[in-house]
């Protein structure tokens, strides 16, 4: 499906908003307002934004700890205030302050998150079973990093989805590192997309810094899933600009990440690249760019203020949160 100008502007706007939210959470952490931790996703805005432009609220999505999902949850419709308030531990947070960094908005197709890397793959296949049985063309987007492919659940979930032609789109953001472990020692090949071959499903590689390329690639996979033809694996080649975990040095293995490598990748900032293209094509003007930037900043400022002023949770919630009626 050829992408329209309006869709491109939305992609750009959402990437800007995601970046601003990421910055806001980092500031909140260093201001002592974020109660737990934060794993920045700067540099990886494109895959989530592109995928969410192809999904409706009836489609399901599992995100990862990278950016605590902001690159997916925000473009899928979760209010920034709910995300920040959750990080601030407030009662108005997406999980009522219970999780500290999860986003759970099931009406938007976001069921939440667990705490083990790769713990959601099999759940994604299960949502695929439900979607298939319901027969309304729902799709499940299951995001993963390169590190998560080490889990056995990656295999069992993929196997189930391939066997039963479940409507799951696996989107791997290969940023070359799993926590502090480089992919070169965690995986014996260069391309994670190769794993798809073992299951007889499409495995496609795409430049993760090119939001339109990701959009077009995911579009094919989503259409395939909606048509009942089964799952796909998409590998986005991407990179995280900041350390794995905020407040820590940029550890890799027993040393530090190579600064030259970081600087080289920063030249391929997905937002800058797209902005350049949109300006060149005359789809956006300089004034538009400024306006989008300004609106995003205002949005996050308002959301942060809301979170700051929200109350902390009443422990009464602990009594009803364990079991449903």
């Amino acid at each position, binding site marked *: 499906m050829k992408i329209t100008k309006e869709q491109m502007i939305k992609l750009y706007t959402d990437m800007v908003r995601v970046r601003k939210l990421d910055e806001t959470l980092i500031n909140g952490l260093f201001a002592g307002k974020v109660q737990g931790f934060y794993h920045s996703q700067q540099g990886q805005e494109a895959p989530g934004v592109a995928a969410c432009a192809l999904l409706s609220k009836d489609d399901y999505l599992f995100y990862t700890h990278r950016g605590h999902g902001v690159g997916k949850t925000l473009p899928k419709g979760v209010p920034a205030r709910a995300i920040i308030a959750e990080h601030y531990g407030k009662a108005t947070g997406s999980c009522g302050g219970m999780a500290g960094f*999860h986003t759970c908005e099931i009406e938007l197709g976001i069921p*939440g998150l*667990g705490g083990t890397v790769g713990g959601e793959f099999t759940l994604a296949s299960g949502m695929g079973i439900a979607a298939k049985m319901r027969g309304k063309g729902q799709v499940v987007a299951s995001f993963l990093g390169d590190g998560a492919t080490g889990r056995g659940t990656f295999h*069992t979930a993929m*196997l189930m989805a391939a066997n039963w032609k479940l409507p799951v789109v696996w989107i791997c953001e290969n940023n070359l590192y799993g926590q502090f472990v480089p992919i070169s020692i965690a995986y014996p090949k260069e391309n994670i997309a190769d794993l798809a071959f073992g299951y007889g499903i499409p495995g496609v590689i795409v430049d993760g810094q090119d939001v339109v390329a990701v959009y077009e690639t995911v579009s094919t996979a989503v259409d395939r899933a909606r048509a009942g033809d089964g799952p796909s694996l998409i590998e986005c080649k991407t990179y995280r600009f900041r350390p794995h975990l905020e407040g820590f040095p940029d550890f890799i293995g027993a040393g530090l990440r190579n600064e030259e490598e970081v600087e080289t990748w920063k030249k391929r900032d997905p937002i800058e690249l797209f902005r350049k293209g949109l300006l060149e094509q005359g789809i956006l003007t300089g004034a538009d760019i400024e306006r989008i930037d300004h609106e995003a900043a205002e949005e996050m400022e308002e959301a942060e203020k809301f979170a700051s002023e929200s109350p902390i949770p009443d422990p009464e919630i602990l009594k009803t949160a*364990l079991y449903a*009626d």
Partner: protein
Amino acid sequence: MREIMFKDAINEAMTEEMTRDETVYLIGEGVSRDPWGTSEGFFEKFGEERIRDSAISETAIVGSCVGAALAGYRPVANIMFSDFLAIAADETLNKAAKWRFANGGKVTIPMVIRAPIGGYSKTGPEHSQCTEAFVWHAPGLKIAIPSTPYDAKGLLKTAIRDNNPVIYFEHKALMGTTGEVPEEEYTIPFGVADIKREGKDVTIVATAFMVQMSLGVADRLQKEKGISVEVIDPRTLEPLDIDTIVASVKKTKRVVIVDEDVLRCGVTGEIAAQIMENAFDFLDASIQRVAAANMPIAGGFLEQYILPQPKDIAAAIERVLS
């Protein structure tokens, strides 16, 4: 009243619930032909979309149930042997048990894992276990464990209708046992223990196959020594009907807790602690426990030295009375 087998009671519960609610489906390895005969007629009635024979992937079987439940369906998994729950430990203890709580109590996870338990079939350490303690320790799960066909049917229907993850333990040695089961539809609520045998000298608390073994010992001791044993079957461990247990203890003042699983850190310890907390002043003797030896369950001829035997229950009753 008609008498039917335990396995057929399970079959009826599944058939009724799957007929009643199209979001209920069954998933597991070879569930279209369950080794213990609980699946007769399923595939013909409900087809391959709702009777899903999976690859040998316990993590995907259990994990997919969590996902399907989140997406509005009511899956029932059959894990074939409860020993295999360990393969899906993250999916059971961290995902199924904790997801709702960790995500602010905003979602429900209506799923059932049917887990065949039990030994006395000489099938060795990883095909004979009773793993109730393993899951009871994770808050967020409910646990049902029938000892009769009547309880099997009523508890399974309730488990499927419950909006929480339920582990339903079905004992393999009970599959061919028979009991009265009404034709009319009924359910059994969770958290209601059943007094399987009334007595006044000693209280036995037991589950699953140990209920039947205890009843046999009770009958023998009544005949041979005039000892009157009351047998309490909790039927669900979570929620646990401690009130019925305590009422019995207040009456008899002597308790023997019988569990087929390993003694250490098991079901007997938890129930004993709760009895002590609630009825300490009523006890005339220390609580006796009968459980499996602290070792894996050997196969073949050595199994009998590890799993509880009727003489162990009789000896515990004599001890608590002495």
